[in-house]
Structure formats: C-alpha cells, structure tokens
C-alpha cells in the first residue's frame, strides 16, 4: 500500500496571507490546501488526511484554539502549527500545552514555518506508522 502524499492545510481568514503561505509551501514541493475559516475546514473531507495544519489563532467564528480543542475532542490528532498577528504569552502557553508543534508570531521567518511544518509532517507520519503496526 503506497502512502498518500502528505498535505499541509492552511486556515487563515486573510486571503493574501493564505496565498503567500501556499506559494511558500508549494515552493518546497509540498501539497497545500487553503481554508478561510475553521467551519469550511470542518465541512471538508480533509479532516483525517495525513499531514499537518497551519492555523491562525484569530479567526472569525470558531477561533484557532477552539478548533484545536474540537479536533482533540474528535480524536483527530493532526499536528498543529499556530500563527498569529500578535500573540500573547497566555495564548501560546495554552496552545503549546494542548500539543501544538509551534507558535509563530507574524511576521515570522519563512524557514521557521517550513521547519515547523517538517516537524509536524514527521510526527504525523510516525504516529500513523505506529498505529498501522498496532493494527497489524
């Protein structure tokens, strides 16, 4: 069975930021899918796709931290990288405690984001492998 190619999901309500991140992530050869809100993402078919999530903290409607909680409650353990316009310490602590890979404050260096994405993808791959082995 061939592993499906991992997917980086970007959720940010600012369209230019979304496109920028898409371009950046694709430039290193990764697949990317964009969502403007958490609701859109929750309705999509991508919930359990292998990969990782790049998530804006401040979103209209369901916020980033909210979405993190909902995914955890639904036992969807996709690694999450948070990005934010202005992060406060409390938020970042909360996000990291809930298992986030990284908490980046805009403007961040492109390499920092890509490094975090690589870490996230690797973690996701390992987890899936472990689960597959257990299943066998």
């Amino acid at each position, binding site marked *: 069975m061939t592993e499906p190619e991992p997917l980086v999901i970007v959720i940010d309500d*600012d369209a*230019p*930021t979304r*496109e*920028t*991140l898409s*371009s*950046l992530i*694709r*430039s*290193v050869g990764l697949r990317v899918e964009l969502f403007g809100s958490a609701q859109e993402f929750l309705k999509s078919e991508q919930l359990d796709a292998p990969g990782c999530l790049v998530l804006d903290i*401040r979103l209209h409607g369901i916020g980033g931290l909210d979405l993190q909680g909902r995914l955890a409650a639904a036992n969807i353990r996709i690694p999450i990288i948070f990005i934010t*316009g*202005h992060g406060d310490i409390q938020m970042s602590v909360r996000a990291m405690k809930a298992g986030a890979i990284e908490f980046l*404050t*805009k*403007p*961040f*260096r*492109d*390499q920092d*984001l890509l490094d975090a994405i690589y870490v996230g993808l690797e973690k996701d791959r390992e987890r899936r492998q472990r689960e597959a082995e257990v299943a066998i």
Partner: protein
Amino acid sequence: MIPAGMPLAGSYDPLVVALSVVIAVAASYAALDLAGRVAAGKGWSFATWLTCGSLGMGVGIWSMHFTGMLAFSLPVPVSYYWPTVVLSYAVAVVAAALALYVASRKQMSSARAVGSGVVMGCGIAALHYLCMMAMQMAADFRFDFLLVALSVVLAIAFSYSALRLAFHFRDAKEEVAWRKLGSACVMATAICAMHYTGMAAATFTSSGTEPDLSHSVTVSSLGTTGIITVTLLVLGFAILSSIVDRRFHAQALELALTQTKVELARVGRATSLGELAASIAHEINQPIGAVANSASACLRWLATQPPNLEEARIAAARTVREATRAGEVITRIRALLKNEPPTKERVDLNEVIREVLTLAGNEIEKGRIAVTTALAADAPAVLGDRVQLQQVILNLITNAIAAMISVEDHPRELRIETVADSGTVQVSVQDSGVGLGHEDVEQLFRPFFTTKRGGMGMGLSISRSIIEAHGGRLWAAPRSGHGAVFQFNLPRADGAA
C-alpha cells in the same frame, strides 16, 4: 386659701404659649431633618445619630408640653413632682427614638406606619398626661373624657403624619428646606392642637387642702425662660449638626464619585490605547508578514531547478501588493488620529495638568518623587479635545516617572511648567531620570519604539499625533544635569498673534 370645691379658672400667658409653638415648630423641623441623618448612617454613625437624635427630639417634645403647661396658670401655686417629670421626659425620648427608627428604615409599609403612629401617639399622650399628673397644688382636676379621647386621637394622627413626612423628607436635598419648614409648621399645629385639647380636657377645682410638696419643684418665670432657651439651643444644635453632617456627607459622596469617574476615565483611556496598539499591530503585521514571506517564496521559486518563473512572478507581484497594503494601513491610522478631534472646546492646560497630577498621585507617591509646578497664572486657554490633551500630559508624566524609578544617586524630581507667549501656550515636563542617552531623540516618537519593559511604544507617537492634530509641536531634549525635558506647545484659543 380658696374653699374646697370652688372651680378654678386657669389663664394662659400668651408669650409662653407662643414660645411653646415655636418649640413645636423647631422640634418638628429637627425631627424631619434628623430622620434623614439616621437613615444615612450605618453602624456607629447610625447608633450615634439615633441616640443623640432621640435625646434631642425628646427634649423638644417634652419641652413643648411642659412649656405649654407652664403657660397655664391657676389662682393657686403649682409645683411639680419631679420624678414624674423625669419619667415624662423618658417617655418623650422613647417616642422620639421609635419615630426616628421607623422613619429611617428602608421601607415604610402602611401597617408599620399606622402601628408606630399609634404607639408613638399613645406615648405622646402619656407624656402629656404625666406632665399634668406631676402638678402639685391645692386643687383637683377632672377630665372630660371625650376631650381626652380627642387629644389621644390627635396625638396618633400627628404621630402618623410626622412619620410619613419624616420618611418622605429624609433623603431630600437642602433645596426643599422651605417645604420641610412648611411641613414642620403643620406638624407643630397638630402638636399644639393635641396639647391644648388635653389641657382643655381638665377642669380644676380647689381641693382646700395643702398639697404634699415633697420631691416637688416650683418653676419660676426664670425657670420657664431657662427651659425654653435650653430647648431651643438643643434643637438648634441638632438641626445645625444635621445640616453640617449632610453637607459633609454630600461632599464625601461627590468626592468619591469624582474619583471613580477619574479612575474610570483613566482605565478607559489605558484600555483604548492598549486596544488601539494591539489592533494596529494586528493590522500591520498581517501585510508585513505577507511581504516577508512572499519575497522568500519568490526567492525559493527562483532557486528551484529549473526556476519556476511564473510562481516567482506571482510571489513578487504579491510582495508589492502587500507592501502597498501595509502603507495604506498606516495612512489610515494616521488619518484616524489626525481627524479625530471634532470636539474643540476651550481647555485650560493648567487645570488639565492639576487633574493629571491627581491622577498620577499614587505613582508619584510610590516612586517617592518630588513634584514642583510653575504654572503661569495668566496662561490662556487653548482649543482642543480635553480628553486627548489629558492623555498626552498623562503620557508625559508617566514616562517621566518611569524614567526616574531606577534613579538612586540623586533626587527624583518632576517639574511641570506652563509658559504663555503671544501666540502659544507651552508646557514642559522635566524629570531627573535616566535621560535620553545618545540615541536619536526623534526615534522616541516612532511607533513601537520603547525602552520600557512591557511597553507598547505607542505613547509618544500617539501623543505627537494628537499635538500635531491640534496645530502644535511636541519635542524632547536632554536636561542639563540629569534627565530629560519633553515640551509641547499649542496655539492660544484667542488666536492672539
């Protein structure tokens, strides 16, 4: 000696009767006034006002009746059995205490008003007849029970209305003093009606025997004058202290209110400044982040083998677009700050400085900072938004305080001056703090520049925007010796050139 059984005709001294009416009015007015004080008091203050109020009012009620009795003279000498007189005073105090207590409660139900009115009325009637019983003379008296009953009914009616009126007036301001006085007159009329009905209920006949005069006192006209004088003094004192206490109370309340308002304004301003800074940060970080990342993406597309020129072009175009967007955000914020002051009122900068110093009083005290001011007495008003100018001065003062916190080797001095010249009013805020160092003074005014731990770096840049929007200038300079001087000027409101 007048033979036994002879009816004795009494006569009234009109002057003393008139004085008893005056006492009744004063006592009623005091009662209306005191009820408010008792109601406003809590804990000790409540207990003190209730006790002193009851004793004072007791004097008033008792004295009115006793004076009324003294106004009445019989053809036989009359002396008074003093234990009964003392008892009658005690009854008066209890009735007064009941009245003040009931009238000072949060609510007065009809049942409570009627019940208390009956008890109080009976108390006053008891007081009246006790006073009569205290009379020791060579005469007997009989009562016309119809008139006695009428006097009791009048006493109850008076008590009920007094309670109602006291309850009504207790929270009233001083402006209604004349209405209170009117009510006091009505109450006094009721008291007098009750008293003189009670007196009329008795008919005196000579007993033909010498009265037992042990424990009795006669009251000379001098004594009558004394009682009246003391009573009026007591009531006057009660009313006066009540007025003083009310003023004091009102002032304390107003002070507390002002402080709350000032505090609220300060919090509001701090919050709005913080929120403004946060939203500016968010608005600007969004496009700036996109600029940096798009440019990086562009480089990465160019570095791929082979270079993906189409993606690189798109990324470069987005870089330009986002940089323009960042610029627009800044323009919008500047416009927002510049166009803000639609409210142009005459503002006395000296007054604003004093207000702000009060505001910052806590921090000044905590920082053990010596404040001196040299505010030009003739400084003319400027035109502007009071709150914004307050914000600027508060910002300069809090900056000055922050700059001095770490200073240990010389005094911490904050000096504020205003100077007026022909066209402008200039304010300078000097501190003996760490000074400006060698850095470019102008960078202090750039957004997000801060030397404070946890500072937003928005204070001075916003302050400058505000001052410039008011047609003035804000600048900084090192101070000779230690510290820094921040100065701004604003055009005078009268526009003198």
